[in-house]
């Protein structure tokens, strides 16, 4: 009995646009799940996934908000609620912002998702099984003062949230994509962001799923002339946390700042992949990835900077720091550069190591206990990443992160 295939088939048959979904499903069926011999998935424990056990829900379950979600929503100008991939509320009206439910299979680039993500099995599952895309559009020239929160709750089974954000010319907005719940669940989000000329999108993706969840996410930003995408991705939850984050800098002067942060404990795996694709001249990307692994957890960061011929005076930087909090934890860092243009600035750096012994001593020499010194240093490691958050959210997220860090054990070898 394959609960996944059966419920997926029922789900697709019930949708109005079943044909495109069936095509996506057949692509999935013909390629199957990737294996660890596939370079892109070599760190993923996909053998333990057991995809057939996850049922695709035909309707959203009811899910109570966590205390954190409630507080987050209180700070938002607009709250969009998505449960098990179904958009259940598009929130109140907010001037200059529209929220639509789109059941088509279109990418924000205008192509079909099937075409765009054909080689990505999990994106194909999203194309087949996402109830709809939640499409947020900010009208040209509008500065949205308060953050928009997309609250993703997952209950059980397999869910496929899809979010698309379009920021019109010269507009600016902050959006938080928050994920929680997901006990024994599979959550496969696909998000796309299009930032039009001279617009600014500040995006925070905060993943706090249950430690038993499988989270396999993909985001893509399309950044046009002089537009800015500032993206912070924080992954704390999930048994396997996969986050692939691409940015395509397609307009001259476009910029992308990406900060990815993760904390691993127990036997978690955090698998972050990034790709900064510079197509247009004078584009900049700054990537800072910082993560800590405790217990027997492991992480891999694989970053690619790709610079096309003609993307002159591109400035691309990639930095990855990994903190080892136990001798049994493991972190890999795999930076890659593919440069087809000469007139560029490009740099990458990475480190893997334990907490700094001398920083620890410095704090202790003020009367801070060793345990507190370690906690402060780990917090500091993350707070540096959070310092980019807008002030109305920073404190809330900091204290939530601190509550998770408080339970992390530091073992020195």
């Amino acid at each position, binding site marked *: 009995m394959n609960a996944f295939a059966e419920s997926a088939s029922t789900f697709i048959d019930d949708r109005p646009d079943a044909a495109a979904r069936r095509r996506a499903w057949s692509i999935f069926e013909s390629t199957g799940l990737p294996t660890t011999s596939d370079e892109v998935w070599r760190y993923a424990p996909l053998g333990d996934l057991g995809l057939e056990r996850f049922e695709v829900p035909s309707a959203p379950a009811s899910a109570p908000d966590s205390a954190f979600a409630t507080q987050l929503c209180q700070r938002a100008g607009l709250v969009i609620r998505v449960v098990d991939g179904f958009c259940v509320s598009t929130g109140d009206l907010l001037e200059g912002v529209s929220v639509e439910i789109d059941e088509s299979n279109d990418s924000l680039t205008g192509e079909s998702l099937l075409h765009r993500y054909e080689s990505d099995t999990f994106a194909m599952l999203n194309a087949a099984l996402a109830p709809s895309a939640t499409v947020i559009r900010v009208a040209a020239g509008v500065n949205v003062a308060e953050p928009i929160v997309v609250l993703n709750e997952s209950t059980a089974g397999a869910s496929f949230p899809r979010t698309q954000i379009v920021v019109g010319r010269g507009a600016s907005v902050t959006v938080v994509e928050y994920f929680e719940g997901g006990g024994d669940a599979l959550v496969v989000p696909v998000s796309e962001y299009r930032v039009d000329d001279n617009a600014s999108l500040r995006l925070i993706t905060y993943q706090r799923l249950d430690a038993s969840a499988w989270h396999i996410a993909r985001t893509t930003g399309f950044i046009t002339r002089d537009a800015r995408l500032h993206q912070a991705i924080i992954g704390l939850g999930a048994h396997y946390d996969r986050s692939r984050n691409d940015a395509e800098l397609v307009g001259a002067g476009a910029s992308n700042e990406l900060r990815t942060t993760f904390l691993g404990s127990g036997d978690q795996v955090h698998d972050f992949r990034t790709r900064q694709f510079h197509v247009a001249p004078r584009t900049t990307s700054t990537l800072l990835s910082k993560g800590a692994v405790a217990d027997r957890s492991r992480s891999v960061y694989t970053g690619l900077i790709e610079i096309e011929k003609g993307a002159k005076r591109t400035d691309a930087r990639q930095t990855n720091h990994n903190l080892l909090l136990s001798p049994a934890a493991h972190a890999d860092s795999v930076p890659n550069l593919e440069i087809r243009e000469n007139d560029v600035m490009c740099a990458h750096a990475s480190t893997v190591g334990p907490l700094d*012994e*001398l*920083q620890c*001593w*410095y*704090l*202790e*020499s*003020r*009367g*801070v*206990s*060793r345990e*507190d*010194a370690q906690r*402060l*240093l780990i*917090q*500091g*490691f*993350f*707070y*540096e990443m959070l*310092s980019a958050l807008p002030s109305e959210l920073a404190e809330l997220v900091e204290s939530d992160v601190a509550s998770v860090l408080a339970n992390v054990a530091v073992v020195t070898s």
Partner: protein
Amino acid sequence: MSSTLKIEGLRVEVAGKEVLKGLNLTMHSGEVHAIMGPNGSGKSTLAHALTGHPGYRVLDGSVTIDDAELLTMSPTARARAGLMLVLQQPFEIPGVRSFDLLIAAGAEPATLRARMLEEARRIELAPELLDRFVNVDLSGGERKRAELVQLGVLRPKFALLDEIDSGLDVDALDVVAQRLMAATTEWNCGVLAITHFRRLLLELTPTMIHVMSDGRIVAIGGPELAVTLERDGYDIFRSTPA
């Protein structure tokens, strides 16, 4: 209450080499003592060994505050016993704010903010710098002042200053010296200043000067000793090998 800091026969090894070779020093609350000596005489080693820096190995000796032995204590316990080091080059701690450091060090949360502001005012540190991560994006002089804000909040029984004068201009040096001088009366703080230069000691008047050479104290005297050192150098005090 008066306390006594006593260092007896302290021998310390760094990277396999004995740097302190039996050092003795005694001082009391409210006093200012200066340790002067040439480069390489072991001054910084003393500061680090007293506070339990992981790179320094104590071979022998004793360091006590009111008969409590510090050398067997963790760095934390030494600080809580009343000894605080102001570093020559304070560490940057990205992501950690001074406020949180001081709370973890035992400061009273309710009054901490006000006390930090007051200390910053006295040491002429721009108050907005208090919100930066510890020592991050601060100039050398600002870091020294930030260390003194911590000192003023934590009020240790004994303050150990490792070359506080490096990186400070003359005006800043006076402000720092005046703050330390005030500490000796405000909470009867004992100040042990390690320095190369006499300039610091014009405002921070020492009760006693200890001249250090080759890992030992080779001369002790009053403030006039600083004048002699400045005029004649350290050569006359260098211990000759037996």
